[in-house]
């Protein structure tokens, strides 16, 4: 476990040196800050806009950061040949893979906290301190970001960067549409198609599960029961993805 932690910490430090990270973070903060520009609207509408823009920015830029950081974290080690030095030490491929995952979670957490603090500052400035629903929304967004990052990391164990980026972005969009797909499946009468559809619906990560922001901003209260179930869903999915990733990293020729 200590080895995993050390690799994670190093991976985190290395990610901090990437300029893409800062560019995305600055753009995200600018976008969140720009939501203050809607002051020509009524107070209620402005607050809704601030929440909408901020939640969306935290998720969107968080997803971009998750994809870009996870994308290169393994391929960089191979390109720079540092992976050989690492494997010369008593470090297993599983340690390496899990360490990378820990590093990604740390960097995502740091970015997430920075963007969230900025958002909270805006809410407090608007004299509307965040309520528990806001925290539930942010929490689920964070779980979603870890899931996105872990999927990209896993794909990085067996595919090229180009394929990975296309796959991850595509999955991000499809993952938000699976609920709609399910509505279509429910109307299908063909049993085979229905079965295949249901299987796909289970296999493809349902990112819409984590999306409660559209409801929270208009005052719908989301229960703890829902948040708990979705969190377990997220954790189980991350576990599945990591198991698949650890299988492929073991098989990979280095």
């Amino acid at each position, binding site marked *: 476990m200590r080895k995993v932690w050390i690799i994670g910490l190093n991976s985190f430090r290395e990610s901090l040196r990437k300029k893409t990270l800062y560019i995305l973070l600055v753009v995200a903060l600018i976008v969140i800050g720009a939501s203050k520009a809607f002051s020509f609207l009524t107070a209620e509408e402005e607050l809704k806009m601030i929440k909408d*823009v901020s939640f969306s920015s935290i998720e969107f830029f968080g997803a971009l950061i998750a994809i870009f950081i996870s994308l290169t974290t393994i391929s960089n080690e191979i390109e720079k040949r540092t992976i050989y030095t690492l494997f010369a030490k008593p470090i297993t491929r599983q340690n390496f893979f899990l360490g990378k995952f820990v590093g990604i979670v740390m960097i995502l957490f740091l970015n997430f906290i920075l963007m969230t603090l900025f958002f909270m500052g805006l809410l407090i400035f608007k004299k509307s301190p965040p309520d528990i629903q806001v925290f539930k929304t942010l929490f689920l967004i964070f779980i979603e970001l870890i899931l996105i990052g872990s999927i990209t990391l896993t794909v990085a164990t067996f595919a090229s960067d180009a394929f990975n980026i296309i796959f991850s972005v595509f999955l991000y969009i499809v993952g938000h549409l699976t*609920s709609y797909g399910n509505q279509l499946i429910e109307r299908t009468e063909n049993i085979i198609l229905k079965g295949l559809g249901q299987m796909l619906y289970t296999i493809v990560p*349902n990112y819409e599960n984590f999306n409660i922001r559209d409801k929270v901003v208009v005052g719908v*209260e989301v229960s703890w029961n829902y948040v708990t179930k979705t969190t377990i869903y997220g954790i189980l999915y991350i576990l599945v993805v990591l198991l698949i990733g650890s299988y492929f990293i073991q098989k990979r020729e280095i």
Partner: protein
Amino acid sequence: MKRNWIRIFIALILFIPIGFLQVSIDYSKKLENLESNILLMPGQVAGSLVLSGFKGLAADLLWLNIENYWHSGQHYKMLPLFEAIAWLQPNYIVVWAVGGWHMAYNVFATVRSRGENFYEEFKKMEENIKEKNLKEKAKRIVEEIKVLIEGLARDYEKTDKKIEEYFDITDKCLVEIEEFKKNKKLYEILYGMINVPVEMVFWYRNGISFLKKGIAYNPDRYDLYFELGWTYYHKGRDYPNAVRYLEKAIKFPHPEYVDDVLAHAYEKNGQIDLAIKQWEKLLGTSFDSIAKRAIETLKKGEPFTP
């Protein structure tokens, strides 16, 4: 190597609880009203946002478009956007409230001003009508419709029964203008003007039905019941319906002004005893002095609400 396969096996097994969890989450979504509907949005930006799971942001962009259309007076362009936002975020009360108000008040007023334009046009061409009989007839029709338009804009009741009476007038006028068909320009002015009250009623009813649709999505909040009750009370002078919806509004946590409007609605609906009771509820609130005056006046048998 064999141990490596176990990982994949466990991963596949884990899809079973994931599948069950997804079913449970879908059920919770239905219970907690967290489901969202797909919609192809007007405009590429909004469409792509919806497809990427940013429905709230898409709704905000459309709302900003509404603001633009509002300030540039393009009232009709706002209508599909209200529908789109309401579809994207059906629990966003402001959209239903503003949309309903916009139709029943603003578009209604825009149509009315078109009636004034037709009237001005008629006045300009009145002198050119050579045949005295036709001129008098056209003048009478225009004046009759003008009175109807002004009445609808001010204080005419807009109950279903009354609206049928207004439509009887417009139908009669439509038959009468048949003989003006030879004078195409005059016919168009008269036809356009007769349609103005019909369209005013159409937009009033559209506002009402938009608010009712909003209530269907948000039945457990006072807001839209109040908006609907107020529209019936103020715009429609349809007091039975106003009372019906305001009574529903006060069943949920609500501000004091809702009770105030209900008290007025009771009085206008002839339910003086209920009006007095309603005013009594407002004693000791910020409406205290008004409530005292209202109770005193109503008990004397005099009208309080102008």
